[in-house]
């Protein structure tokens, strides 16, 4: 839209926008996270919601205990193989649109506990992750930065066309298969449709 016309109209008290802008504006400023803390990063997440860093200013006003009422799951802490099915189940129970922030080295890739018989090497083996925050634990400012990155991502989503988000795509899945506990580990070890590991091409 022509910016000068917009400015002219706004001087007369007429506010113009597009559906996309206002839809995304509403969504990004009221992302309600799920109270989901696994380990040490959870304490930094709690510190981010406390008076000093205050995540509520950014719209994460209430942390909801029920996944049915949450928009965002901040996977903060090590995901163990024992806990992984529960994490995927919770993600499946969240209604669309839903987002995932993988907070901390453990949630991204297993972190310092990678070499473990009970540690899952990153939650992105089973569910799609939107923002990764490195750190062990990341500072509260880093979590706020990640939150703002997510808000930027939401505000850039188009409502129509190929680039539209998953919840507006009828054929993209919003629930992912839950792994099972087998004799030696998880079955399956990862979800091939979701997991995109870095490929080393040796020339």
């Amino acid at each position: 839209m022509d910016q000068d016309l917009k400015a002219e109209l706004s001087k007369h008290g007429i506010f113009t926008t597009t559906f996309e802008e206002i839809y995304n504006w509403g969504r990004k400023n009221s992302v309600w996270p799920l109270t989901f803390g696994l380990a040490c990063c959870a304490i930094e997440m709690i510190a981010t919601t406390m008076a000093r860093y205050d995540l509520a200013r950014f719209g994460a006003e209430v942390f909801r205990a029920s996944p049915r009422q949450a928009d965002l799951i901040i996977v903060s802490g090590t995901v163990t193989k024992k806990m992984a099915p529960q994490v995927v189940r919770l993600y499946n129970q969240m209604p669309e649109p839903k987002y995932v922030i993988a907070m901390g080295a453990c949630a991204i890739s297993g972190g310092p506990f990678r070499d473990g018989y009970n540690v899952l090497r990153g939650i992105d083996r089973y569910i799609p992750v939107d923002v990764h925050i490195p750190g062990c634990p990341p500072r509260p400012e880093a979590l706020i930065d990640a939150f703002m990155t997510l808000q930027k991502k939401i505000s850039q989503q188009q409502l129509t066309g190929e680039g539209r988000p998953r919840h507006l795509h009828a054929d993209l899945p919003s629930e992912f298969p839950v792994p099972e506990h087998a004799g030696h580990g998880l079955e399956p070890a990862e979800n091939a449709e979701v997991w995109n590991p870095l490929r080393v091409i040796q020339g």
Partner: protein
Amino acid sequence: MMLEAASIERTTEERTPVEAAELSASPENGQLLELSMGPHHPSTHGVFRMNVQLEGERVMRLKPVFGYLHRNHEQIAEKVSYLASIPYTDRLDYLCSMTNNWAYALTVEKLAGLAVPERAEYIRVITAELTRLQNHASLIGFLLQDMGASGTPLMYAFREREKILDLFESLSGARMMCNYMRFGGVRVDLPPQWVERAQALVGGFPRFLDEFERLLMGNEILMGRTQGVGVLPRELAINAGITGPMLRASGVNYDIRKVDGYGIYGRFKFRVPLGEHGDVYDRYMMRVLEMRESVGILKQALGEIPGGPIIDAKARLRGLRPKAGEAYGRIESPKGELGFFLISDGSTNPYRYRVRPPSLINLTVLEDMCLGRNVADVVVILGSVDIVLGEVDR
């Protein structure tokens, strides 16, 4: 304003739990609801699961399920050197990284026969007591949040915690995972003005405690929900290996700082508060009173801290190969007795590395305390045990 536990007014009505005979309700003759509280639950302090069997609102059975945060810390420690395990000890009880480091450093010093210079001992005591302050404040905040106070006490507690974390950050470089103690001393010396800043914080802390107490002490909901709830008898506490404020709330005078006198705790004058009833209210009061004692220890230590080296001249951090043998070292962490058991076979990696987790062992009696009580009491009782899953599951 010093408060003695016995002088606090208590409600007179006794709420006795259900008699043992009535607890024999079985699935056949009653309507038992089996409920899984956790691992994702707003009040289980982490990924902890309790399978409870309920008759109406009353708890008939409670079985805890662990392992949702089992990160095989012990196996990793057996594959790497002694020094490389120190950052992993930070992540055990992730609220109290300084005391975890100290317990491990103490055990290795026992194993390898290392001495610690005086200044380092003072720094260790100061950081440990600061850790105790922020741990107990956070615990009270979380306990009250579980009761429904919806964040306000937690905000106050975290406000003080942030001040202490600022001190830790300027000292060790990290807020939570300090990685600060070394075998034979500490890693870096105190930065300029650190002692003055700490003294200012400690000077202001009693005012925070007074404010906290004014908010909470006579609060009817707090008293109604915690007095008489979750009683732990003395003999059971000793036999079940309970340690820390939970043990002392049941009236047992066992504080490892006094019993073992590790470090230089023998030089400081401080009292050990004891409870009478062993209920949740006493455990809450233990933390309040211990915070006051910690402030006293800090004032003394910060006033007396000498100069000098911060690590033993003979300490060898890299390539430490203690002689073959074993050692068990323990300290009074804010949660209880945190012990490390190390078996060395003469090489650079420990042959066996074991953490004695106070949070896990304090949960032994969770079922006993909750039987016959309501589901709502389970939440409060679990909050008073003070668990951190990084330590329970390791």
